[in-house]
């Protein structure tokens, strides 16, 4: 890896930072669109155009944001907190470059708790409006979150153990892009664990149903029922970014091919292309999972998350045994 120096390096970093910022803002609605389109095709429907999620966000931003008179500042602040923390995490992630901007900050524990901060505010804001659905949503979200977090941390630990670092960029660049590392049983188990975590964290079937209109069954959607206009747009956008974050984790920590090895333009463009293919592929896989499974009964969700936890734990143990 040839490392440029001084001024040149800073310029490159700034350029990468801008590209990554644009990507994490622009890409998530497309990923959401791919999932919606794939699900529709699996149901023999034409489905909305891929641009639908952009139009939805655009529409929401132009609409009036109604705020209940019984709410406090938390209700108004929460969308911004959620959006900012999620966006920050996304810009710190390893995506397609070897020199992620602020790479030294992409400490895994920090990222998990930045996401946690957003979730905390969202749950508070749902309680703030005093509607019964918000309370239901918050209580369910927190129950699930408390089970998801250990599984998520363990699965990343499994990969961190071989890299010897909790820095996601270090982990991503330590995994060699070879068949043997792809087929490493520890990697596969950790991937499976993190995949389940992804479904739970981003409110997909079988944990939550993003397409339902039934208030009583909702988890994430129940929390944001009271939001409208730009507030709702920010929250929707943030959840789409969150999905991209998890897809990036899955794609880059376990299938590390494609992270540009140098700062040359060719490598960089190839890196972006491979990244897009990985994200698109994961979106289709999620659509397949959502189409072939029913939503779990709420009280079975802990069982599923236990499976994720166990897989991650096994992966961690294997990591030391196989070494």
């Amino acid at each position, binding site marked *: 890896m040839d490392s440029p120096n001084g001024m040149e390096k800073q310029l490159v970093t700034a350029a990468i930072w801008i590209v990554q910022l644009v990507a994490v803002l622009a890409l998530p609605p497309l990923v959401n669109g791919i999932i919606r389109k794939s*699900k529709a095709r*699996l*149901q*023999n*429907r034409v489905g909305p155009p891929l641009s639908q999620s952009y139009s939805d966000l655009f529409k929401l931003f132009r609409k009036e944001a109604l705020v209940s008179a019984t709410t406090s500042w938390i209700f108004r602040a929460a969308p911004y907190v959620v959006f900012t923390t999620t966006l920050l995490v996304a810009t710190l992630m390893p995506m397609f470059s070897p020199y992620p901007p602020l790479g030294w900050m992409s400490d895994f524990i920090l990222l998990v708790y930045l996401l946690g901060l957003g979730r905390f505010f969202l749950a508070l804001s749902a309680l703030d409006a005093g509607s*019964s*659905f918000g*309370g*239901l949503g918050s*209580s369910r979200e927190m129950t699930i979150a408390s089970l998801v977090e250990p599984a998520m941390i363990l699965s990343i630990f499994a990969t961190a153990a071989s890299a010897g670092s909790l820095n996601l960029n270090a982990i991503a660049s330590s995994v060699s892009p070879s068949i043997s590392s792809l087929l490493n049983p520890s990697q596969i188990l950790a991937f499976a664990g993190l995949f389940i975590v992804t479904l739970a964290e981003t409110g997909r*079937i*079988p944990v939550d*149903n993003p*397409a*339902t*209109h*039934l*208030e*009583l*069954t909702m988890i994430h959607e129940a929390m944001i029922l009271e939001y409208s206009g730009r507030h709702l747009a920010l929250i929707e956008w943030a959840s789409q970014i969150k999905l991209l974050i998890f897809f990036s984790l899955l794609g880059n920590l376990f299938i590390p091919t494609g992270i540009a090895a140098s700062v040359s333009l060719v490598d960089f463009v190839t890196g972006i292309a491979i990244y897009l293919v990985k994200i698109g592929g994961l979106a289709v896989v999620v659509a397949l999972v*959502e*189409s*072939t*499974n*029913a*939503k*779990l*009964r*709420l*009280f*079975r969700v802990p069982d599923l998350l236990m499976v994720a936890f166990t897989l991650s734990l096994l992966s961690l143990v294997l990591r030391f045994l196989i070494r």
Partner: protein
Amino acid sequence: MTARDKFSVIIRRAWADRLTLRSGPAPNELYASLHPDFLGSLPDICEMIVRSFHARFVTLIPVDERADRNSFRVYYVFSIAREDLFLILEAPVNPRHMELPSITAHIEAASYFEREMNDWFGITAFPNIHRLASHPDWPDEVHPMLKDFDLRTAVPRVRGTFDFRPVEGEGVFEIPVGPVHAGIIEPGHFRFSVAGEPIINLDMQLHYTHKGTEKLAEGRRPAHVVFLAERISGDSAFAHAVAYCACIERIACMEIPQRAIVIRTILLEMERLSNHIGDVGAILLDVGYAVGAATAFHLKEQLLRLNEILTGHRLLHGMARLGGVTRPIEDTVAKRDTIRSTLSDVRRTFDALIEWVLSTSSVLDRLETTGILTQKDALQLGAVGVAARASGVDRDLRRDHPHLAYPFLEHRAVVQKGGDVFARFKVRVDEVAMSIEIILQLLGQHSGEALAAPPAVLPASTCALGYVEGWRGEIVHWVMTDAAGNIGRWKITDPSFHNWRALSLAVRGNIVPDFPVINKSFNLSYSGNDR
């Protein structure tokens, strides 16, 4: 000796002093009028009828007969299935007291009927006095079903609150839901009392879609009311219309042409098919299995389009008329072939869908053991139709009181034991197969040319029941003509009216996010319940 004669003898022997017997124009109805002096023994007589005749409470019909007889009368309809007989007990109510003893202590299924009678007629079945149909803001002394209540009356609203059953204790919360819901379902208010996720109690306030249908019909010509009957419950338009027509036809002793009977039966089964398949889809959608749901909805659409091709209306409006049907549906080879090919398409795809669903464990896990309605509760609350048959209650008017073409078909009721969402799902799946079988069987029959009996003049002050087994359950209508031979009183009993209480029992102990799928597995009509 007919069943009617046999029971006349038995009843005369037991209660000669209290009951006066008469028969209606319909051969399977026996009316027994209770002497006013023995009003106090009404609950005991009802209990005896249920117990010793193996009878089942079907409906309760209050009638304002002050003009003719200077009294109100309440008709308690019982079905004696093995003899194909309806025993109808008449109790007089003194207009000065407006009270009679409640039979709910013996027959739980009558409870909602008595409460509705209290609201709409002001006749109190003491001590069953809680409101049901009138909302809290409705004044106490206004009873809209009385003959002297003018429909144009502007009723003042009063202050009042919905008195649901309070549940108290640490960590018990109330979740109010509705009356306006997400999606395009009808209005109804639900009040859940929950401890965490499990539901301790569910109370509901319905009757938001009350349209005064029964009242609107009064004084109208019988032929005009078919239009109203089609609008009682949108998903059972044809079944309600046929049940209403049957009342008039039985009052006039009309001879329905065989061909009309066959067409009516085919269309009833078409209605059952599209609704059952739609419900299968809706249940799958509610557990988040969108691919299965999309397949089922596609099939439902095919069936509705077939309806349109055959009858000109997707929901079969305009097909029923007094004495028969308005137009043929099987008159050309092309039409018969369309029916056959559509049905075989539907059957093939539906079978594949079900096979696929039954091998998807994540779906089964959601359906099994969810929302169990025990056989005991189903019997006690008088549940009917799909909900009853899924709880092991073998109850199907098509066999118990054979009507239309069903006596000529080998009909067995589809019964499941489980009582859970899966059992109700299975009952629908099996009935879909049976409906297709019935339609194909009837399609091959040659049955004359006439589509309807000639119109008849109705006798004055005569009454009869009319009934069909709709897709949701038994639909029982009752009509009494006035002095001019027009509609004097029309009572509509939709299966939903029996089953809403069953739903509120079935959800107890389940978790809140399972309520929608339990609700969908009953799929009750608000409009039919509220009328």
